[in-house]
């Protein structure tokens, strides 16, 4: 092997890469909570909404879970300007991630809705709770607890998925790695360091999620 590693070339860009990692985390965070909110309404619509609303939500879910997120973002970024909607890259990527995760999180949360014991809902009903109150006080905490594992893995998946933003010129972690490697050509070193940063931030995110789960929802999750 004739390749000579020059780790210094990669490491001197560490602060620049870490700033990008922070942007990745922000994208994932906003994408997740935006998607979770859409998913909540989607799940309520599918479970309680009647046939028409079920159909509409289902169409959305089928469309967004059966096409790649990357294709959806391309569409937002390149097709919408044709009708006069020009989105900055960060916004286009964020909307794409939110719509995409909203579809997945609709299905995940719907499973949570269905798994709430009917008797608990009846008890809430006879105490005088409205549907919104039942969702807020009984169903959502139940979903957070029982679906903590799938929701956490989805969040990690989303952190990694933010790397798609680099294609649209958003300077998150992967975007910055590409920037550096196209100027110094130390691609292997740069992307090795980048991969390690991804591992570090996903472990960190998992640990934070497990802590939240343990103390807020009594989930028996391993922190490390």
């Amino acid at each position, binding site marked *: 092997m004739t390749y000579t590693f020059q780790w210094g070339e990669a490491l001197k860009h560490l602060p620049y890469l870490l700033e990008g990692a922070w942007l990745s985390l922000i994208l994932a965070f906003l994408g997740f909570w935006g998607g979770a909110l859409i998913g909540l309404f989607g799940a309520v619509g599918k479970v309680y909404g009647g046939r028409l609303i079920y159909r509409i939500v289902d169409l959305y879910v089928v469309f967004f879970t059966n096409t790649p997120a990357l294709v959806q973002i391309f569409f937002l970024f390149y097709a919408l300007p044709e009708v006069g909607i020009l989105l900055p890259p960060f916004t286009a990527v964020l909307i794409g991630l939110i719509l995409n995760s909203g579809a997945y999180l609709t299905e995940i949360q719907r499973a949570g809705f269905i798994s709430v*014991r009917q008797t608990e809902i009846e008890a809430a009903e006879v*105490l005088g709770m409205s549907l919104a109150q039942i969702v807020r*006080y009984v169903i959502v*905490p139940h979903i957070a607890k029982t679906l903590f594992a799938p929701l956490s893995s989805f969040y990690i998946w989303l952190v990694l998925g933010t790397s798609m933003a680099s294609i649209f010129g958003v300077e998150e972690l992967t975007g910055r790695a590409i920037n550096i490697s196209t100027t110094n050509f130390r691609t292997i070193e740069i992307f090795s360091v980048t991969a390690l940063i991804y591992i570090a931030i996903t472990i960190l995110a998992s640990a934070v999620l497990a802590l939240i789960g343990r103390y807020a*929802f009594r989930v028996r999750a391993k922190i490390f």
Partner: protein
Amino acid sequence: MPHLAVADLTATYPGTDKPVLRDVSLQVEKGEIVSLIGPSGSGKSTLLRVLVGLLPPNSGSVRIDGEAVDYTSRRSLKNARDRLAIVFQQYNLFQNMTAMGNVTIAPIRIKGWRRPEVEADAARLLAKVGLADKHASYPDQLSGGQQQRVAIARALALKPEILLLDEVTSALDPELVGEVLDTIRVLAADGMTMLIVSHEMGFVREVSSRVVMMDQGSIVETGPPAQVFDAPETLRAREFVSRILRH
């Protein structure tokens, strides 16, 4: 005026045509404890479910203190649910809340009552049901009997006038039945109006002012416990009593 008056109530489960309640009429006076007995499937629990609005009646009327309940009106139903409380066979506690959380959620979040007063009241209720030391326990950390007593405290937290108890001891291990029955005895001594569905015949006989026997959706016999258990008038009641007394 009766505290609770049910007249000619008929109800059918959705998707079936056979009525589960047929022309049921019943009156409960203030402070009275009326027990519903009868074989499984006779409509006892269904009657309670209709009263709290979990199953809409087909016809007939329900009046609380003379005021008719309109089960198709959200406002009227809410008003009725303010005055009636139900405790279920399976306790149905909210699994994500502590005992204290279960008891205080409705008064704080639905009624908007002030937290300090609600919590003081809840502490008093939990003490009354013998769980003064279990405020911070979650349902899965409590025994069945303890969960059922939390459920009773939760039902009382909204200060209902009439308490409906739906086979509250049926899901419990035999050694835990006594503690729940003791709790109900305390409420009875307080003068709470109660409608009880129970298979604990000894208990029914002891606490009830009146016993109502149901069979196939209808009331077949009603009277003081001594009469219904010792000298039932109808053939159907005699059969049921002789069968349960053989055990």
